[in-house]
């Protein structure tokens, strides 16, 4: 199986409270925050690796995973890290975040899919910086492929994927014929979430994403990483979304202390008007 995994580099999501917005409101300033792979994309890579191997012998590849990102030269480290984790080749589309929106990324990804002809695109359900949650859906539409979003489980079948989607109140199981687009949620990296046809259903993976081994880090330097120009993928490189201004959410006002329950009820009735 051949799988395309789009990866996005985001500002350290664990320190998202440290982003700043300059007085001009023209952008979100992430200076000083360490760039990291979008966590959902790391989960997508783990799922793709599981689908292209026998879990018992993970060092033997049984398929191909191609990672692709959109960004400047510095994003090569993100791709190299993905190659060290197990991906087979990488593509970087040279551009910067401020020149992109979800629709443009989806159209460019379609062009890459047309060239690479993967059996499935596995991607994070959303990037944790913009939280747009639309590229997978748009890409499936442009490709006219079936889509299964927010996947918590994926089991490979002959020519199809059986995908468990966690929804309010339960799990919807979809059988999508290949080729298809799958976007993944957090639980896709649980020990029994993903099985290729080669992996025994009794096998249990370690919880979470796999670690890059030191020999693999060294070997990743020799894996192919090609750079493409955005204009080579799509003639129309104008984003459809224009950001006019950014502003921080207003600071929360300090609360008040009430004397007793009667006082509380009074405030809820007269001020909050919820009673």
């Amino acid at each position, binding site marked *: 199986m051949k799988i395309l995994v789009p990866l996005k580099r985001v500002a350290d999501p664990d320190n998202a409270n440290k982003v700043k917005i300059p007085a001009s409101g023209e952008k979100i300033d992430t200076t*000083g925050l360490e760039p990291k792979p979008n966590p959902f994309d790391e989960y997508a890579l783990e799922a793709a690796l599981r689908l292209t191997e026998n879990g018992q012998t993970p060092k033997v590849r049984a398929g191909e995973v191609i990672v692709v990102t959109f960004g400047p030269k510095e994003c090569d480290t993100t791709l190299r890290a993905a190659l060290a984790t197990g991906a087979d080749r990488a593509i970087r589309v040279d551009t910067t975040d401020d020149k992109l929106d979800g629709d443009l990324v989806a159209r460019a990804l379609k062009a890459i899919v047309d060239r690479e002809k993967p059996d499935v695109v596995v991607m994070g359900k959303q990037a944790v910086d913009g939280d747009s949650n639309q590229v997978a859906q748009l890409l499936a539409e442009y490709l006219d492929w079936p889509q299964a979003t927010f996947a918590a489980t994926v089991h490979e079948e002959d020519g199809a994927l059986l995908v468990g989607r966690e929804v309010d109140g339960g799990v919807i199981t979809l059988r999508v014929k290949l080729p298809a687009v799958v976007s993944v949620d957090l639980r896709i990296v649980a020990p029994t979430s993903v099985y290729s046809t080669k992996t025994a259903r009794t096998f249990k993976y370690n919880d979470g994403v796999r670690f890059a081994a*030191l020999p693999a880090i060294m070997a990743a330097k020799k894996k192919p990483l090609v750079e493409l120009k955005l204009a080579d993928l799509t003639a129309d490189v104008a984003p459809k979304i224009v950001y006019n201004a950014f502003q921080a959410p207003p600071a929360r006002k300090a609360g008040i202390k009430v004397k007793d329950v009667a006082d509380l009820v009074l405030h809820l009735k007269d001020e909050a008007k919820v009673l």
Partner: protein
Amino acid sequence: MTEPTDLPNAPTEAPDADAERDEVRKAIRAICAKYDVDYWRRVDAEKAYPAEFLATVGEAGYFGTLIAPEYGGLGLGAGVASVVVEEINRAGGDAAIVNAQMAICGTLERAGTEEQKQRYLPKVATGECKFLTVAATEPDSGADMSHLNSTARRDGDDWILDAQKVLISLAEVADVMILLVKTSEGATTFLLEMAEVRGRCEIRPIDLIANRMTTTLFIDGLRVPDSARLGPPGGGLKGLMGGFSVRRALAASESIGNGRFFLDRSLEHAKTRRTFDRLIGSNQGVQYPLAQAYGRLEAADLMRWDAVRLIDAKKDAGGRSALAKVLASEAAWEAARAALTTFGGWGLAGEYHIERKLRDATVFVFNNMLNSYVAERVLGLPKAF
């Protein structure tokens, strides 16, 4: 806090700026994030062998960092190995065993026969063979390895070993260890396969300040074949000393990791803990020790990278590595002191992890031999002994 504190005005170009080492740093941090401070607190409290952590590190290939590719390793430099141990300690763990498994086999790689190297090194690289200790120090001579009481004498094609060794780390868990004894030719090393030896020698735990699984080791009339001899008779000290620069550089890196752990934790505490209606980090009594600890650590780190540079260039790194180890261990000790000032009484509580790492850091502050080395070899002073 799993990520080391990012300092707002730290130099952008660290002395170890190197894409390869940065990648290794990130990769080892990802492993350390899984084995957090509470894991290490439990291992310490139980005086246990951190088997799960070591299995993960072994699977990820780190034990082969220094071993040549022809023996199943990666043949990477001391710089990569030093980053590995630094990051484990900086994350609040204890890199002692990883350090040992990466570096002690260097003596075997330099002095061993081809057969010995093929037999052990590939399994050391995977972690399958735990090659963790050198039994050198003795009850009467301490670190004076030129006056050994332990002996090996020839008996036909074999050797008969009699040894009394103290302060030996990890003899209870090691699969293979190096034993230093005296023969008629002088100090000589042997490889002991512990599965065979363990029932035929006496190993007793020593209760130590830090969890080092330290023991005494008494061997009485143990017969071993000549194929167990490591290097030529009389060549034991030379074989061991060939690895001293790397071991000192790694010890320095462990100390820098310990020091940065204290600093990371202290800065976070100083920036969030309020007493007397103010952040304690605004008190100069807290600021100055932290600023000084930071300065000492950075200075020691520069010396560490200079030592690594010389080692990786295959030049004499004796003096530089000795200085790096002395400076780094003292800097970590001062950083621990600054952490205690910052944390106050909480620094003594297990749940803040300062007291545990303080105990780990004490292991490195015995520097008499290194100061003597610097005095004699670098400064040209007369021999002290």
